[in-house]
């Protein structure tokens, strides 16, 4: 009897083990075999492989479908668009060499010749047309479809020229084309695979070698890259490491070469002589979002009172260790586009005035309110706790509700919270910060905020193509917005990248911290 039992248990275990040992390769995405010198780059890769910690698992690699930062930092190595930004945020050509604008609505782009996709075929005007039409197609469900909402037609003129006609002037069109998702993809690869979630085929400096889920995505140098002398590294490997303590330990011991770190962790690494900590001002800002349709926050006096009772400097010092800048709706790293908020009355702590405004609004003794925040973001929780304390001074009793990220996104889109703490990115053009988040038709206006005068200003800003004139318009819009206070804008934090000292040629910028084309290990 015992013998049979043992036999049964052993067979069972063997079955489970065999079933589970299904070849791992089935599950990792491998790109087409490297046709040109794949072996060579494999060999040299051991010398100049850069290892980068990715704080989340990429959510797919289709640039037209996936907005997650964990994916963007990978596919932006693989794909390119017509335009890009230089380090000073000037628009420069990438796949386009030249472009002209006629009648404020017709853009003509001349394409670089001889650029090849990773599959070996030359990239031509037809591919640009196909890619942008793919983004516009409702069935693609692209997250940047709205960027092309005013496109009336896309035509090719020969193999190297594309003409895009807009239905009305749109000053943001060129900057939209620099977006990491507005990139050119080959039709045949999309059609062969259904989409580009697992397969990658662009014109970029690196091509996909393999993707082991929840572990790493490895890219190898594109030997045919159209920019002379780039990329410098033979291989880029992105390792998914969700825990900051693991990333810190791996960069200390040299297991990885790059990682983003939080402001608080910089202190743990600053004395390490093998590492450089590179800070850069982000394009993000933290905010307090009000439900502008719900009493008492529907009264602008109440919102202004809360602004006057908010000590932004204290939030900067405590939540962000003093590293960052107090911000308006357009982050200070956008340069001339953002207004100097320090001079504005509503940014100066003034408890007496705040109380007076509350009394005028009919709340002399304050009121009770709920602040909702995402539990997975310590900075948001800390901000909520500070606000809870600060607002007590004017009799506002806030209860903090911490929710999990999926529920937070739901609350955000359903517009159900009284007050939501969050972080926004200013984007690459002030239109995003001002129109998209706050005009009454803005698709991310989840604040029930509507003001006809404000709407007309931002529409004017969008339709004006002269940069100087736009700046004046947007300065007016920012001041108006801060005065109406549909949100309170708090702090634009610094971001930090820890890099091993033996890596040269890497500089992060507010609009792009993932440019590894010139980075190399010495």
């Amino acid at each position: 009897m015992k013998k049979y039992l043992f036999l049964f248990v052993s067979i069972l275990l063997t079955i489970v083990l065999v079933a589970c040992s299904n070849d791992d390769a089935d599950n990792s995405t491998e790109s087409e075999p490297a046709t040109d010198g794949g072996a060579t780059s494999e060999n040299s890769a051991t010398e100049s492989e850069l290892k980068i910690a990715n704080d989340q698992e990429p959510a797919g690699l289709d640039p037209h479908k996936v907005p997650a930062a964990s994916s963007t930092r990978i596919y932006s190595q693989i794909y390119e668009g017509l335009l890009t930004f230089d380090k000073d945020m000037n628009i420069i050509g990438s796949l386009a060499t030249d472009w002209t604008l006629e009648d404020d609505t017709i853009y003509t782009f001349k394409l670089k010749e001889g650029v090849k996709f990773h599959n070996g075929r030359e990239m031509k005007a037809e591919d640009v047309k196909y890619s942008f039409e793919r983004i516009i197609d409702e069935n693609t469900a692209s997250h940047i479809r709205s960027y092309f909402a005013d496109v009336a037609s896309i035509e090719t003129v020969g193999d190297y020229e594309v003409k895009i006609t807009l239905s009305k002037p749109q000053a943001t069109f060129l900057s939209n084309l620099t977006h990491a998702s507005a990139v050119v993809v080959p039709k045949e690869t999309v059609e062969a695979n259904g989409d580009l979630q697992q397969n990658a085929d662009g014109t970029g400096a690196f091509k996909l070698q393999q993707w082991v889920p929840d572990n790493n995505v490895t890219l190898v140098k594109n030997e045919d890259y159209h920019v002379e002398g780039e990329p410098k590294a033979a291989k880029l490997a992105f390792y998914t490491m969700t825990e900051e303590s693991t990333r810190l330990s791996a960069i200390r011991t040299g297991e990885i070469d790059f990682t983003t770190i939080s402001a608080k962790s910089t202190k743990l690494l600053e004395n390490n002589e093998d590492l450089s900590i590179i800070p850069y001002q982000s394009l993000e800002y933290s905010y307090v979002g009000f439900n502008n349709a719900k009493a008492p926050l529907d009264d602008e006096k109440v919102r202004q009172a809360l602004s006057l009772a908010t000590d932004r400097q204290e939030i900067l010092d405590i939540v962000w260790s003093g590293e960052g800048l107090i911000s308006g709706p357009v982050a200070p790293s956008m340069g001339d586009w953002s207004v100097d908020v320090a001079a504005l009355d509503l940014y100066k702590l003034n408890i007496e005035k705040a109380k007076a405004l509350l009394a005028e609004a009919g709340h002399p003794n304050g009121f009770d309110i709920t602040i909702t925040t995402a539990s997975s973001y310590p900075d948001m929780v800390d901000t909520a706790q500070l606000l809870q304390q600060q607002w007590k001074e004017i009799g506002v009793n806030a209860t903090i509700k911490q929710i999990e990220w999926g529920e937070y996104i739901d609350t955000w889109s359903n517009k159900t919270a009284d007050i939501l703490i969050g972080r926004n990115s200013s984007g690459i053009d002030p239109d995003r910060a001002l129109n998209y988040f706050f005009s009454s038709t803005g698709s991310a206006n989840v604040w029930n905020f509507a003001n006809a005068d404000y709407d007309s200003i931002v529409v004017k800003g969008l339709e004006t193509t002269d940069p100087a004139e736009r700046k004046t318009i947007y300065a007016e819009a920012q001041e108006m917005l801060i005065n109406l206070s549909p949100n309170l804008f708090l702090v634009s934090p610094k971001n930090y990248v820890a890099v091993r000292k033996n890596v040269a040629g890497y500089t992060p910028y507010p609009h792009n911290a993932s440019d590894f084309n010139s980075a190399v290990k010495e």
Partner: protein
Amino acid sequence: MTSYILRRLFMLVPVLFGVSIFIFLMMRVVPGDVAQTILGTDATPESLETLRNKFGLNDSYIKQYMNWMGGVLTGDFGQSMRNGRDVFPEILSRFTLTFELTILAAIISWLISIPLGVLAAVKRNGATDITVRAISLLGVSIPNFAFATVLILILALFFNYSPPIGYAGLFEDPIKNLEIMLIPALVLGTTMAAAIMRMTRSTVLEVLRQDFIRTIRAKGAKERVTILNHALRNALIPILTIIGMQIGTLLGGAVIIEQIFSLPGLGQYVLTGITQRDLTVVQGSVLFISFVFVMVNLIVDILYAYLDPRINYK
């Protein structure tokens, strides 16, 4: 026995059916929209709607459940909503890692806990016993995520060592695989060992007080034989129960450990699935884990009969 096993296997059906309904409803009751989570804040309402239609989220719950179950019964667990990969092969491949981690952790924990537990029982109230009890109390009290984080920090700061990154399967590169798995398994194993150590000590003590042990000793058996062949063997039933339950706990505890050590296991898969509201991934994985859990319990029950001839399942 065969009929008992068949009966138990047959009982799997209602259990798994219940689990499937529970997890299906659970994922639909919790707030959070997969389309919004995927497309982020830039998405237009039309894009969100297209995606929801593509995933069938606008169908009735009954239709959605039938579609899912129809697939499951034919071995197709569907595709991840997030990245389009087939769920079932991915579960199997990730389970290999989690299973290996669990088994390694279990072996480590047995190696530590059973000898120490027996030793503590034999040297009752002596210095060894007190030390073992103190260690086990400490082990039970420290959560494994805290232990893991501190261990990583100590290894990096004082020994300039961090577990290798990347992953190699056991059969591809056994040495690298073991190097990657060793520290996570050690963390998981030591926290598990504490509970088994306490149980071993108390059950061995209990057995040692019984009459048959006195008889064996009176017959002149060596102490080593008395302890290992008679006392430990008879003490194994409750220990085995704990081990069976701990295997389940290990599969759960692996979630945190896999996350901390960046291991692409099943726990990491479920966790990412939950935060991203990837319904097919979570449903498929939970169903699979339930199956494994039930099977482990079945194996433990069968082992009871092997260890204690008085138990039979006829």
